[in-house]
């Protein structure tokens, strides 16, 4: 553990210790409920699911909110702070003697639970008891729990993995509608617990277990799908090694544009899959054409361009990608041909594809400088390219201070013959265009 992590751990633990001491001095109003929900909290953490970003997802909020409800305003701090603290006692970490993690998680949950209890007590639903009133108190309490949880966790993850906090914040965003159900289930569980006692717990746990198991299967399948996409990329690169890294770069630029445009998580995922698959049609093109270190003839040009139609056809076979299948073809996704019609994803990929085509070295010409690529994109914005996508890409790259193109290439293939800087097939302005054209932006044969 780095020194900065130690200091952070010490600060969180000390604060939680002070809070827990104050809570414990108040005395416990209902030992049976406290013990029950503390055990459920430990169980909830025990069956948590590991996420791709290194954090884990669990249903700990359900027993915490249930305990806050069941112990009422008088015992809310016991319920929130200390029941949540038990959730930090992750048995596998204890077994592996990862005491630093145990201490941090327990401290974090004490603070998050105490914060939730504070919100619940402040809203004081017991003054006018009714189900809606309780929901109006427990849902904000649950969101407070999550907000504190994420606020304390993100710095630790960032210190632990040496990555920017915003990367974790994006995936751990607390104020999301998807967390509200846990608060609602917790409220209901607390209510029926007071009526029936601990025997009702298995009935509340069963659906959560089912959802957890299903989510694990989902993550495994998603990983399998990612692997299939990597297989596609690898196959493409075996056919055409000169485009190594191309589809991943297009996917990255598309993500930048998508973020600038504020696309939802779902649309970003769809955009990524489409970007990774936009060149799938190249698999049916002869290697000799893809690797030709010279200008293509008109007939060869048409044969290569066929891959776009094939890509569109193949993307249409995937339900999830069907609405944006035209992403695979700059001809279908020309801005002046279809205007600003929804969805915007095909235009995003065409801009990302064109940018990477211009800033990469190919057998038939060297990479262009980034400023030239920007200039060409802007010149054709409103005709070939969607203006908002062009603007989003240039803005995103400038903000990240990323430089690509001539002089900044990260992956340069060892060519048998050095590609020309200018001349036939050079300069990027007419990669596949007829011989006389040297001023058109490439419709990305990439």
């Amino acid at each position: 553990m780095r020194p900065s992590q130690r200091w952070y751990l010490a600060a969180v633990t000390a604060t939680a210790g002070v809070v827990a001491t104050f809570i414990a001095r108040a005395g416990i109003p209902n030992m049976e409920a406290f013990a029950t929900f503390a055990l459920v909290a430990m169980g909830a953490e025990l069956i948590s699911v590991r996420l791709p970003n290194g954090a884990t997802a669990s249903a700990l909020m359900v027993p915490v909110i249930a305990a806050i409800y069941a112990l009422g305003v008088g015992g809310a701090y016991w319920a929130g702070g200390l029941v949540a603290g038990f959730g930090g006692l992750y048995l596998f970490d204890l077994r592996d003697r990862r005491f630093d993690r145990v201490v941090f998680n327990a401290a974090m949950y004490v603070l998050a639970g105490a914060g939730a209890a504070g919100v619940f007590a402040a809203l004081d639903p017991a003054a006018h008891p009714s189900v809606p009133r309780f929901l109006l108190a427990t849902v904000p309490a649950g969101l407070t729990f999550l907000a504190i949880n994420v606020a304390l966790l993100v710095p630790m993850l960032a210190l632990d993995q040496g990555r920017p906090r915003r990367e974790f914040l994006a995936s751990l965003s607390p104020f999301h509608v998807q967390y509200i159900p846990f608060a609602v289930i917790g409220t209901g569980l607390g209510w029926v617990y007071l009526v029936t006692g601990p025997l009702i717990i298995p009935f509340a746990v069963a659906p959560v277990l089912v959802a957890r198991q299903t989510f694990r299967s989902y993550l495994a399948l998603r990983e399998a799908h990612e692997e299939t996409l990597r297989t596609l990329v690898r196959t493409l690169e075996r056919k055409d090694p000169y485009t190594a890294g191309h589809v991943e770069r297009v996917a990255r630029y598309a993500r930048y544009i998508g973020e600038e445009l504020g696309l939802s998580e779902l649309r970003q995922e769809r955009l990524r899959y489409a970007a990774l698959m936009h060149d799938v049609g190249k698999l049916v093109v002869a290697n000799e054409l893809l690797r030709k270190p010279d200008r293509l003839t008109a007939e060869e040009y048409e044969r290569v361009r066929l891959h776009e139609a094939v890509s569109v056809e193949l993307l249409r076979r995937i339900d999830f990608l069907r609405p944006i299948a035209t992403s695979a073809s700059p001809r279908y996704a020309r801005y002046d041909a279809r205007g600003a019609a929804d969805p915007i994803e095909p235009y995003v990929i065409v801009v990302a594809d064109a940018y990477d085509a211009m800033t990469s070295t190919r057998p038939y010409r060297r990479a262009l400088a980034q400023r030239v690529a920007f200039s060409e994109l802007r010149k054709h914005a409103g005709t070939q390219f969607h203006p908002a996508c062009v603007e989003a890409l240039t803005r995103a790259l400038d903000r990240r201070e990323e430089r690509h193109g001539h002089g900044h290439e990260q992956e340069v293939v060892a060519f048998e013959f050095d590609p020309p800087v200018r001349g036939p097939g050079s300069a990027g302005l007419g990669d596949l265009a007829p011989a006389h054209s040297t001023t058109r932006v490439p419709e990305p044969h990439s």
Partner: protein
Amino acid sequence: MTAHISIAPPRRVSDPGAPRIRPDVAVALAAAAGVAAAVALTTTGDWGRVAVYGAALVVGELLVVELTDGSTLPLSFAVLVPLVAGAALGPATLATVGAAVTAAVLARHSPLLIRAATVGGRGLAVALAWAAFTGVEHLAGRGGRPAALLPAMAAAAVILAVVLAERRLRGLGSFHAARGDAAFFAVAASGVLMAIGAIGVAGRGGMGLWSLVVFAVPALSARWAFGRLHAIRRTYDQTIDVLSVVPEMAGRVRPGHSRRVAEVSVSTGRMLGLSKHALEDLERAALLHALGSVTFDDRPEPGTPRGPREVAGATVGVLADEHHLSRPASLVAGMAGNEVDLDEEERLAAGALAAAASFEEVAGGDPSRARVALATTIQAGGSGSGLGDRRVLTALARVVTQRSIVGHRARS
């Protein structure tokens, strides 16, 4: 480190091939149900309850959980438990169930007989569940708080049994498969929670109709999780399908080749008694076995071999680095007779793949060539790879003779 990150929002992908409910009807019914619920939640009279249960049943009929076998389970089954627990089975209850379910099933794209059977099935479930509830309630008597759970549990169990029986009668998956599907337990548990929440214990402590809202959340969570799982499964399977047709589009194999090899090899594997996971790996291996062929040059250097072994080698080269595709890659390697570490089940699967590929090489989707193809495959049995296993060849022969599997066309 841990965080309370739950599952992301449901991600439904369109499934134009199998619309269950017309969107306009669904929206209209759901809106009507919402209005009824909003009004009734502030109403304490019997008609208020009838309206809420009716609305909840309609919404429950419209919202279904997608099960692993492709069939669906309506969430309305969860609502039936509090319905029988909270009301005597009087005319109002029956009218509620009948009207709500009829309204919902009318919106479905299914034969009239199926719709009628659905309404009848719900009525039967309510009647039997009510009988179970009242019977157990009488038997449990004053058993205290633990015994208070038993009547609702009995009602949920009976409803579950009726659901499974109905599915079996309609041929919607086997009883055994459905029994193990976790979605049933999630829906049943939500039903019990709704019932206990609605009526409390001995008439005290219930939250009334709000229970339907609060405890619909676990059932909806299950629906949402299963929906997301099926969406990614569909995307994954369709992506594999896309990769399987690439070699034929590139002219490296006959149209429909990989799909036919997959169908023959999986049928053979099933005949050999392979496990579900082994069959899934076998199908993926069959669909992807020719993928490596697209990396070959059109005009190879003279003398460059292009046989099945070379194709398999190229395919393994693009698959083998991936964890989830490593087993299919091993099967492709085993199919070509390459040295690879396989257990007994994998050896059989590789043999089934080799046999199916050999059979398809000759048959090519032409039923009239099936017998010749089978004879050629059996004759080649002693030539190495997994084809040497008599069990595999016997299974292939049974598959070919028992089923007309040689006539599959290329999928457009």
